């Protein structure tokens, strides 16, 4: 009398035969999943907007400030006339740069600037 093969055992045997392919496939799936999460974070966190290595920013890439030259005001130490003057001087230097420029101002996107208006008829 022959025993009927157990379907679970059969499946397990098939798994054992192809375990390398299953390992490679599952590794690829996990990698794709993690890359998907990373790209989603890149897009949603705002990092994409700051990434000057993107296509379209080639001409301005070299003009980015490195931003590591300003050391700031020390968080420790006593407060006296000298330290207050030091802070004011540091703050005024940075504030001057921030206040002397109208960021994202002007009218570069008006219909006139982009030539998207019908020109007014010339009255003779």
């Amino acid at each position, binding site marked *: 009398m022959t025993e009927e093969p157990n379907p679970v055992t059969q499946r397990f045997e098939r798994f054992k035969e192809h375990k390398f392919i299953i390992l490679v496939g599952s590794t690829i799936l996990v990698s794709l999943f993690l890359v998907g999460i990373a790209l989603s974070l890149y897009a949603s966190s705002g990092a*994409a907007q700051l990434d000057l290595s993107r296509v379209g920013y080639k001409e*301005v890439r070299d003009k*980015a400030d490195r931003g590591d030259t300003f050391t700031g005001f020390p968080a420790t130490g006593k407060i006296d006339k000298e330290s207050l003057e030091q*802070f004011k001087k*540091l703050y005024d230097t940075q504030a001057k740069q921030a206040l002397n420029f109208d*960021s994202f101002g002007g009218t570069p996107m008006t219909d006139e600037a*982009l030539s*998207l208006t019908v020109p007014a008829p010339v009255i003779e």
Partner: protein
Amino acid sequence: MKRYLLLLSLVLATLAGVATVAHAENEQPMTDERVEVIRANCKEATVTLDRLHASDGLLRVNRGQLFESISTKLMTPFNNRLNANQLERGLLPTISEEYVSRLDTFRSDYQEYEKSMTRTLAIDCTRQPVTFYDAVVETRTKRQKVHDSSVLLQDSIRKYRAEVDVFASKFKEVAE
């Protein structure tokens, strides 16, 4: 009563009509002629927008660093140092928190603007001139929001500086 209601509805309808006409007069209507103008000039407009997109990206990085450094390298350490010396900080922490909040708004406004600009640049403006124009209008509005956010940041920078002077004068009085 009926006569009164009829008169009121006539007045309201007239006012609504005037408002509609006034609004329409502020914008050029989207006529066939206008669509053709947009179609004819949109390639040049796209080049201009592309250049603006790049320069705004650079501006965002540089200004962003500046705004960040004012918060992290000036406001925060100064507040902390005052706290460590057990000195009355007045409105300085409140203004710093307001600044950080406005900085977050600036970042998110810029993100929305940049996404809108990218979508606008991806539109085939010769095939979809009206869609392109609508996208330009939307992007323009979002850019204005970024500008408004940066103006608020500048306001907080001024306020903090003024409050530092208030603190300094009080400190001087106490020291004397």
